């Protein structure tokens, strides 16, 4: 009973692979991962489990480096990281300790303030007294990891599902953040990414010679609880409800107490006695008559406001800090939403330079759908062309038909792989499929010619020896293709890694599964038993 299985195991293997591909393509268990609150049918694109990439589904991809400089092989001399950061920041006039990250495990220090030039940083490092080896552009691994998480959070907070963030390294060793957001256009993605999202509250107060500014009385990290952006009742505008942290380590003041103190010191309680007292920062920013709170994002004032008399009084009396409730008001709802996202995700530790050193690609959903249809048509026509050539050459359906069927089975198995791995199908992947049909048929031609050369195939032994001979060439050819394609798989050359991965996968499936099976089929058809 085992004899037929043993004799035809190559064909059986092909059947198993094709069945496996069918399961991977259509069984709901292998369906795409669902976003929270989404059911399987929503996540599925079309009848199969295939995932489509940016080219075919629409969306935006951005690849850009984080801007900054890193000193390498720094000798920390046993100092704590924040101590190191403070010492170096003190030597730089246009950066604060928050712009500097010292990472003992990497023995590296980076600066992410965009104003700092390489030579300034070098000078500051020299002056700080910490020994270092060299300075390169780019940031530390630590900063990159934080940035990756922040970007991911930002995308998720915006309510876009399926966004991905990766770090990729170029040949020259430079790191890029690779961000993909399906279904979004370029400007909404770039504005999300290019904005660092540092939210901060300053106080503007009147002095004898114009407006004085006390910066950073509240910063993003001082907020403990964040509500969602809400519309204000009765009046224009929107707000984000927040709670300021009122706990602090021993011997330090909590952010809530500090803020309360700053507000009391600047005389809010004296200035705001009734609803008639208003902040006039918008009208005369250089000469305010009342103290104002300024809400800034990335250093730009997005809104200025005064204070409710009762709130100002509770701050002056020192009772506010126990509760710490506060509203960040804005003029527009969209602004409030943006601030909520920035606060929730945190600020990007460094700027992403998309336009200067990056690249972006954006495709509308309709263009993607067009590409999908067109590339399907292209692929089918290419298969027809191959089939036509094979029929013209052999004029024997017994040889040609299995050849075409085998080649198609190969592509089908590849599609199954794509579904199984949830690898997004893109134009480049489709080019890979077509290339696989090309190489696949080449090898089948080698087998057919070899087996049928030198007269009739009348025994198994003759067939097997000829098949083995053919296989040497096929193996060698496959090895060269794999070698030629392998640089593309690892180098960061855009979408081409998909092309390379699927060409190589196709060659492997071909050599291991489909070509041996074709040999068996041919043997059954040709050997006279």
């Amino acid at each position, binding site marked *: 009973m085992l004899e037929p299985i043993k004799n035809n195991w190559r064909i059986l293997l092909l059947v198993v692979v094709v069945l496996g591909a069918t399961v991977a393509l259509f069984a709901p268990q292998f369906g795409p991962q669902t976003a929270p609150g989404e059911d399987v049918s929503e996540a599925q694109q079309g009848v199969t489990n295939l995932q489509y990439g940016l080219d075919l589904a629409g969306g935006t991809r951005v690849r850009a480096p984080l801007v900054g400089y890193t000193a390498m092989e720094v000798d920390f001399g046993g100092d704590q990281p924040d101590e190191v950061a403070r010492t170096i920041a003190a030597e730089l006039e246009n950066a604060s300790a928050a712009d500097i990250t010292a990472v003992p495990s990497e023995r590296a220090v980076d600066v992410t303030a965009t104003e700092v030039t390489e030579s300034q940083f070098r000078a500051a490092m020299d002056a700080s007294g910490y020994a270092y080896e060299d300075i390169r552009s780019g940031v530390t691994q630590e900063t990159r990891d934080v940035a990756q998480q922040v970007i991911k959070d930002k995308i998720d907070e915006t309510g876009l599902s399926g966004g991905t963030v990766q770090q990729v390294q170029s040949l*020259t060793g430079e790191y890029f953040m690779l961000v993909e957001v399906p279904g979004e256009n370029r400007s909404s993605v770039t504005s999300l990414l290019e904005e660092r999202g540092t939210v901060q509250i300053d106080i503007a107060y009147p002095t004898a010679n114009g407006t004085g500014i006390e910066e950073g009385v509240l910063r993003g990290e001082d907020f403990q609880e964040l509500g969602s952006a809400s519309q204000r009742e009765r009046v224009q505008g929107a707000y984000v409800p927040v709670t300021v942290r009122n706990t602090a380590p021993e011997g330090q003041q909590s952010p809530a107490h500090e803020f309360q103190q700053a507000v009391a010191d600047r005389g809010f309680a004296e200035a705001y006695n009734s609803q008639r007292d208003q902040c006039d920062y918008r009208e005369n920013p250089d000469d305010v008559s009342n103290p104002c709170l300024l809400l800034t994002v990335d250093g730009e004032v997005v809104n200025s406001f005064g204070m409710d008399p009762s709130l100002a009084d509770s701050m002056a009396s020192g009772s506010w800090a126990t509760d710490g409730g506060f509203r960040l008001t804005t003029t527009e709802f969209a602004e409030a939403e943006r601030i909520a996202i920035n606060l929730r995700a945190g600020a990007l530790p460094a700027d992403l330079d998309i*336009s200067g050193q990056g*690249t972006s690609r954006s495709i509308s959903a309709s263009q993607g759908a067009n590409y999908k249809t*067109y590339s399907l048509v292209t692929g089918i026509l*290419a298969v027809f062309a191959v089939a036509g*050539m094979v029929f013209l050459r052999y004029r024997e359906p017994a040889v040609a038909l299995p050849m075409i069927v085998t080649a198609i089975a190969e592509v089908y198995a590849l599609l199954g792989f794509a579904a199984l791995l949830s690898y997004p199908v893109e134009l480049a992947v489709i080019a890979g499929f077509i290339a696989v049909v090309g190489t696949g048929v080449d090898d089948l031609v080698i087998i057919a010619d070899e087996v049928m050369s030198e007269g009739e195939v009348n025994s198994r032994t003759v067939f097997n020896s000829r098949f083995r001979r053919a296989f040497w*060439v096929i193996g060698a050819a496959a090895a060269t293709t794999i070698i030629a394609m392998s*640089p593309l798989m690892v180098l960061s050359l855009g979408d081409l890694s998909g092309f390379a991965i699927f060409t190589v996968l196709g060659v492997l499936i071909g050599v291991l599964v489909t070509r041996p099976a074709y040999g068996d089929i041919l043997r059954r058809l040709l050997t006279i038993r």
Partner: protein
Amino acid sequence: MVAIDVPEVNYTEYSNRQLVAVPLAVLVLALAIIGGWYLVTGAPANLGLEFTGGVELRVADDGGNVEQQIETAFDRQPDSVRAIPADDVYVVTFRAADEDPGNLAEDLSTQADEAGLSTTAIDQVSPSFASDTAQTAIFGVGLAFLGMSVLVFALFRTFVPSLAVVASAFSDLVIPIAVMNLLGIQMTLGTIAALLMIIGYSVDSDILLNNSVLRRTGEFYESVSRAMRTGVTMTLTSMAAMIVMAIVASLFGIDLLRNIGIILSVGLCADLMNTYLLNVSLLRWYKFEGVKR
């Protein structure tokens, strides 16, 4: 019905020198074109967006006279405007500007919006990223070629036949680049993929030929014609797939597939010549004269 019969070539009528002359002449011509291109334009080929930096917009053709609108919509002259009727879009390309490359993509997309054009896709590549990509691409092709050469030498372990394979693969790479220059096709990532694919594809028929002559019993010319029958069929089949892909993809405006198709078609054509003229004559020399030494 038309049938394809691979013609028998009577190699005995030609000397090795005559056989080698043709592919060598073509190779030299191709190298001269590429060299000339380098001297005149500063680059060995027409570099595409991915290697120069710039912005490419796809603008939907929704009836009206979009082409005229495109002419007036932008504050800078587009470097190229290409209509793709099958997809109802225009592809508008802008090279990276020297002054303020920063917000080019943003500016152009706003300008398109203001002019009432609907953009269906935006590609933006910054110049510094582009030069990085170019380096990586050259490195990748070089690495692939080196890997292939090492593998071929390891497979045959004889100098001249291995060299024959490597030499024809080199020529298969160079000729399509020269043809690209002449046809005005730009070097893009797609063409780089195609060049790597040529390394894989074109070596197949050379390996088949060498295998047939060196590893199998039988007379030299018989081995060659046997390998040729199979090899030419293989190359023609692949070429058919690639020509169809190139034609269909250019109708639909899928540049990536079009470029891969064109380059592979040309490369496979070059491969026919190189395998059955260059490689055969080197093998014949090796078989009849080289071995005796």
